[in-house]
């Protein structure tokens, strides 16, 4: 169920592509933080969608979801995060393969990490800088967890 009450079957890759484009296109710190919040939320949902697929990857997906929550919480603490609602929608079980999910998560982690590290340079506000640094760290963990 989405915030507006919609249920839709989403293509994970399309979702991550959309959020990746938003992250790349974000021109201001508030835009970047809002996109990062949504990106972490998508990463969390993707990880939850994958954690029961293979016993060998249970811990990897669980830990990735945890890192995504860490990142989202860090972004939430940034004063520059604008008010508003997430655009991330609830995901129905996807037909995407495990490898596709892990690749998408790894790529999203890298992009988030880079953009949030860049965001640190955009502001002099200590709370924003701390939030971006903590979120970048969480994104980096997602990348490492999902990289073979």
């Amino acid at each position, binding site marked *: 169920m989405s915030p507006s009450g919609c249920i839709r079957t989403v293509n994970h890759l399309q979702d991550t592509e959309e959020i990746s484009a938003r992250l790349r296109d974000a021109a201001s710190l508030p835009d970047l933080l809002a996109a990062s919040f949504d990106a972490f939320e998508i990463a969390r949902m993707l990880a939850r969608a994958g954690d029961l697929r293979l016993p060998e990857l249970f811990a990897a997906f*669980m830990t990735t979801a945890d890192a995504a929550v860490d990142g989202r919480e860090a972004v939430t603490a940034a004063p520059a995060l604008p008010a508003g609602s997430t655009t991330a929608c609830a995901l129905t079980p996807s037909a995407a393969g495990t490898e596709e999910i892990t690749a998408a998560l790894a790529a999203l982690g890298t992009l988030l990490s880079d953009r949030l590290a860049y965001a640190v340079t955009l502001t002099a506000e200590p709370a924003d800088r701390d939030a971006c640094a903590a979120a970048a760290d969480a994104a980096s963990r997602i990348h490492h967890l999902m*990289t073979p």
Partner: protein
Amino acid sequence: MNPTFGDFLTPAGEHITAAVAFRGELPAGAREDAIAELGRVVSALARYLGDLPPPHDPGPGGTFPPTFRERAAADARVALRRAARTLRHRATSTQDAHPVVRHLSAAADYLSAGRDLLHTHFTTGGQPGTGPENSYWAPAITSAPVTSALLSELAHHARVLVPWAAQLTMTAPGLCALAADRLILHQAISGLWITAAAIQAAEHDNPTPPRARHLLAAIPAAAPPPRQPPGTGEPVTGLCHGITITADRLRHAARAPTQPGRWSPAATSASWRRAALACAITSHASEIVLHTLTDRARHLGIEPAITERLRGAAAAMSQTWPWWRAVACEWDILSTGTHHGTSSTPAAADFEDLALRTGRLAHASPDWTPGYAGSSIRGRAVLAPARGDVSTVVAAIHHAADAITRIAIQHQQAVSTAAGERRLYLPTRLMPATCDIPYPYTLAPRKRTSKLLATYAAAIGASARATEVLDELAAAIGAPSTILGVHRSIASQQASTRRREGTDIAQTQPRPVPPPAAPGQAAQIEHLLHSLQITEPALLLRAAALDQATHELLAEATAKSRKQGSAAAPLPQRSQKAPNWPARAAGKDLPRHISGRDGQVTHTDQKAAPTAVTASKNSIR
């Protein structure tokens, strides 16, 4: 590992045995020193008995008269105290002392150190059985079976010393000159004899169970062992040892105050979420390990009954991790808000160690970490090359499950407190767009926190069941962790006795708490379900929904009643100002219930809820 009581009790007995084995005549100087050291031994024994609570008052109804053993202990206490007073107990120089003196001196030292170890389980100034408890071992230490085992040991020492002391009175070089010494010795013998006889008689009446003796010897010092961070390439035995140490550290952490400072790193959603994650990974890996052991047991030709128990343990463990996953999913959404400058807690590092080592036990790669580059399952012959290795691995898994169950109860209680204090929030960005909330967090609805607590209750229940199955398995195969089951059984027996007698001094011990319901009458249905031992979240949630409806009806009725009465008398003002917590301050001007399109709080995760909980998604999504 921590020293145990047995590390002191056993050598004390050995030194006493060695001392009394000397049959010759002691030189004059040595004789005097031996009597002094005997005095120290008797004093140490008397102090042990002095620690025991006096026979309790039967009370007005006279329901619980002192037991035979309690009366025996009281008699022995008086007799030994007198004996200790008459003996001149002083420490002698033992470097060049006669062997008898040295042995008695060492025995007195060991006995005193053992008593000190027991005292570490009780807060300063507290006495076993009467003071505040400081460790999860305390209830077992003060239990009747362990007290009985301790008395039995003390009586044994007394019994061994009596004939030797009697011989000492007969072998003085100048009997007349040493008449005073002989008198003193006679009094000591009398005290020791009364002690031995009284306790032996009680023992005859009600023998000490052997498991209580084992438990007595296994009592560790009430201090967590130092952390041993996982190394690279640890062998199976090293992993098992590390898991045992980490589990012990977590058991100690479970005794931490259940209401830590509001912004303590231990009382945040991040800390609880990380713990739930570790519990899920550890339990999942434990299931894999138990399956592998089942295969190995069959391959090694271990008795089918044991193999079946292993299979049962794996099945029980398979019921645990989905619930821990569900708890972690609940924490995906819930939060205690923003906390600046909070560092991780020691328990967080222990949780990580536990998950990592158990994961490495389950997987083939010795440097396994929870990542996509993880490895395949560890081969059965590598996990347990020989029959004895099966019990070593079972013991490690047993320790992990036991620690998770204990600390989870504490976490559930702390989360319940946070929910009761309305310190659990939702990120407002996860709210529907129609909710215009200019703050990062908003108060979590009660249904959401109830669901979290119901999921905790289910996870704890599943872990407790798996631990009980492992208790039986460990006992069946003689695993080193057998003592955990004995401890649980005796501590539980002690808790029941205290509840029955109304003398429970362990009020600070964390216990599972039911999910909160509306206060007063409105919580009756949910409480009723808990009293019926119902832990199924779907049922609990339905009960909570009914209670909530009752609560709202009562609240509405109360408001109407107040409104009618307000013309006659003003409502009393709140006398105590509520703490100005940031997120609460942020939310105080907001509507109490944030509703989505269909009147329910919404979030973006449907997968987060466990199967049983999603069954009731009409009430909580």
